[in-house]
């Protein structure tokens, strides 16, 4: 019997090593371990053994059984791996086929730029003030030290509704509204839509957008203005950006300046974008005119302030190399998708 068992073990080992499929495996399991299997048949003959032999043979039979079982399991594992390998080989896809995208919409370039500007100033503790676009002449001109009949009004061809109401030509009107209602310290930017009677062409639009800034408190200096604009320019146009102030005239600031930034394309060496100047004008700025403060009930002997403003369209056009302002208002999907 011992011999029989050993033969079964040898035979099983031999067969199992040659297994090719899970069907083979199953038939081997039945052949050796099934109810009518070879091992079972041998064990049936155990009744004829002596009580001395029985535990020894029993032990041996168990060993053989667990050996075969182990072999079967091993075979199954190998087969499984082989089958998986085979399946993986057939499951080939072209990974360069475009993915399933959920197309997200795009922010308009004007929003991109004005959001960036807002982010810079909000992080510096500025609030964002808004005001009406259809505005009183008083807030757009009068309170900003531009009385009726003043030639400075010509520089901004204004749309009028009637003698007192107009479409604001600058968001400075918001500054007045805030200063009338709030005591310093004041630190705000006022982004918004403004209107001037310019015909539509590649560099003009009768509707455009500005962001203006205002700071009023005790002891505000022109140095603070320079420092603030320098920081702003670096945040918006890059760490190495320099600024340059040129004296200019605005009715509501004194001293006043136009502010250039070093060209974002060539860094100041001179190129096509900056017309070989190395500088690009982007801002108007200055110290708030004492008359403007007084018009808002703020004592100009105690308080001072600075103000600045920039055009969003021009900044966006510079940033994205857009050569025609009309593109910003046509809203061609092929344009919008690029941002």
């Amino acid at each position, binding site marked *: 019997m011992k011999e029989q068992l050993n033969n079964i073990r040898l035979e099983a080992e031999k067969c199992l090593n040659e297994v090719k499929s899970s069907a083979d495996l199953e038939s081997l399991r039945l052949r050796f371990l099934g109810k009518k299997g070879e091992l079972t048949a041998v064990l049936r003959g155990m009744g004829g053994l002596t009580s001395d032999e029985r535990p020894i043979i029993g032990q041996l039979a168990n060993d053989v059984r667990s050996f075969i079982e182990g072999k079967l399991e091993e075979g199954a594992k190998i087969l499984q791996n082989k089958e998986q390998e085979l399946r993986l080989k057939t499951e080939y896809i072209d990974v360069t086929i475009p993915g399933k995208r*959920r197309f997200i*919409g*795009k922010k308009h370039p004007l929003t991109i730029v004005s959001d960036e500007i807002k982010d810079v100033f909000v992080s510096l503790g500025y*609030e964002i003030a808004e005001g009406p*676009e259809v505005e009183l002449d008083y807030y757009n001109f009068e309170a900003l030290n531009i009385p009726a*009949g003043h030639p400075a009004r010509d520089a901004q061809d204004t749309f009028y509704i009637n003698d007192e*109401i107009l479409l604001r030509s600058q968001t400075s009107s918001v500054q007045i509204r805030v200063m009338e209602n709030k005591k310093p310290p004041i630190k705000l930017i006022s982004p918004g839509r403004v209107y001037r009677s310019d015909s539509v062409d590649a560099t003009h639009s009768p509707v455009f957008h500005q962001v203006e800034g205002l700071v009023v408190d005790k002891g505000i200096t022109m*140095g603070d203005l320079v420092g603030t604009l320098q920081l702003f320019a670096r945040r918006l146009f890059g760490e190495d950006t320099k600024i340059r102030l040129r004296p200019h005239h605005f009715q509501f600031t004194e001293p006043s300046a136009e502010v250039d930034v070093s060209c974002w394309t060539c860094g100041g060496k001179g190129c096509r974008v900056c017309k070989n100047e190395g500088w690009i004008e982007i801002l108007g700025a200055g110290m708030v005119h*004492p008359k403007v403060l007084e018009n808002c009930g703020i004592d100009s002997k105690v308080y001072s302030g600075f103000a600045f403003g920039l055009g969003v369209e021009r900044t966006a056009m510079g940033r994205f190399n857009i050569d025609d302002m009309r593109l910003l208002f046509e809203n*061609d999907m092929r344009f919008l998708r690029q941002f």
Partner: protein
Amino acid sequence: MKLPLKWLKDYTDIKVSPKEYADALTMSGSKVEGYEKLGEEIDKVVVGRILTIEKHPDADRLLVTQVDVGNETIQIVTGATNIKVDDLIPVALDGSSLPGGMKIKKGKLRAVESNGMMCSIAELGVTKDDFPNAAEDGIFILEGNLTPGTDIKEVLGLNDTVIEFEITSNRPDCFSILGLARESAATFKTDFIKPEIQVKEEGDSVDGQATVQIEDSELCYRYAGRIVKDVRIEPSPGWMQERLKASGVRPVNNIVDITNYVMLEYGQPMHAFDLENLNGHKIVVRRAKNGEKMKTLDGQDRDLDASMLVIADAQRAAAVAGVMGGENSEITADTKTILFESATFNGISVRLTAKKLGMRTEASGRFEKGLDPENVLDAINRAAQLVEKLGAGVVCKGVIDCYPVKAAKKTIEFNPARINALLGSDVSAEEMKSIFARLEIEVNEAEGTVIAPTFRPDLECEADLAEEVARFYGYNRIKPTLLEGKATTIGGLTYEQKIKQLIGRTLQACGLSEIYTYSFTSPKVFDRINLPKDSELRGTVVISNPLGEDYSIMRTTTLPDMLQVLATNYNRRVEEARLFEMSYVYLPKSLPLTELPYEKPVLTLGMYGDVDFYDLSGAVEELMSKLGIKEYSLEPVHDNPSFHPGRTAKLIVNGKEAGILGEVHPSVSEKFEAAQRNYVGMIDIEPLVGNAVLKPEYKPLPKYPAVTRDIAMLVDEGVLVKEIERVITEKAGKILEEIKLFDVYKGKQVPEGKKSVAYSIAFRAADRTLTDEEAGKAMEKIVKGLSEKLGAQLR
């Protein structure tokens, strides 16, 4: 303002290159737009004298000439027809260049050598305006006594550099050569030498020859006159013409040129009347009478009114003050006696008059900025001096000077410490004083004040002085600081601003791109969107001076603008567009407008392409979810004429209508030439802000499993899904967790007029595992309710 550098150098010694000059002036506050080296492109072009002219042996239309060009005689073949022997002509020599980059080389014309080219005015880049006697076609025959070989640039007055300034409206003094010379001298710390004016006055006294009377001293501050007799009208000399041309002024005759020359040099516009044509030899500065008429120098008849100031004689208006002279007193070739006018007027009045008459002139542009009455005499004396220099006439003795109220000089407090405090600088008092001295600002140290010169109306307060200091100290030497310890504020976005930002982000995530459209539009758009004639939206804020009808009213609806953008894209063959805009509509509170309109913020959505109503409503639902707005619904709208009667809904937020969305009515889409099907939504932003819940409250995750049941039913076609859901919600009770619509079907196996609707309904209890029995009971109630209330049959 154009500044010829040669003219400038009469009054201050500037030695730097044009580029350095331009940069320095820009940085001290006189912005240079650019500069032009006159005749820069012309090289090796000289004066030639024609010695002989012969026919070309082989060509009928060509001539062979010998030309003296100074150091040699050269042969030139030409096709010119207007030349004769002894003519002086411009000759482009071998190797020369002309404007536009043309290069001239010697060569042969029909086998005959030609060693240069005779030039026309066009080839030299000048025009008939500059040289009225020159031939339009043909060779430019030069006038005057010129030596062959002379560089043509000298003859044409093209050997100068002209700087172009952008002068701001607050600096009328800089609209003059002298004003810019003063600024230049202050910038380069050179001496500023004013012209020396001496008038011989060889004629008799002005007394009794003419009178001046100012009737309205509010509008005319000073009026000075000088008389010149025995006037000889002729062209002015070359040097004067050159300077005028370089400054962009066309020479006319000696008298007109003198007035223009003085205007450019002193910034003081002048006028010359034919004294014999002034009735009563009288000047009366008065307001025009309503209905008074006058023909101005440009030949136009002008209707005047009492708001306008005129220069009149004893009977009639002879000039519109500060704007333009009249034809009736114009100087002509026969004029013998002239009256020069040098005056100052109220700037605002001149500006309004010029605007009303629609004739902004060089003079009015200067007067409107407010000129210095103290400049009047210098200017008129300079004119007299030039008359004598040019031999244009005999200047009478004396000036008739009517100057009712002497211009007051402004005294301004001067406190160096406060100026430094404003600038954040550390400029010494000494440096400030030296800057002021160069600008002719007098310092009174004892009083702690300065006195501003009368030509600087812009200097009014200490801040103005600070600017003077800063621009000559150097704006860019001011040390940048960052508000250390000052203006400490928290700042940030308001709640509304945050919501708007969130709306934008959410819609972008939903695949919609942002657009910007104009806020004014045409009144015609209302008909195009089928808006009823009596709609309130037709009451608009109207622009009184629009760019055209298309931009003449402030919009009260954004539908046309969105449709226009969709149409533009469609017509450019863009397959699909999904767009949104956050903007305003402008709703008048009263008409005519007596107060500012209500600027209502609106969100506009628009789509076409592979989309349907549910893409649009889906974006809205996603937005509501993101904003945490639960109390909202969509209800069908059948009667909005802009929209499809069966595919349109109004948005109800918290019980109130907050917008409309749907398929645009095909007749409207057609009018915009847009795609066949367009989907547009217009939603008020304020109710979204008011109802948004930005801080969602956390609910614990379920501990017990849910039981899900599916149900399919047949209902009448007209039954809204929303009504079915209302019944389910009502009947299911507390254990209802979620209703999910998974199928709506019409067609095969569904009877006509019915539709099949299928739901998956989930039940769950928070505190225990729900039994099948409980779910079953709820389902029974639901089925019963649906059958009773909506006549639904289970499938």
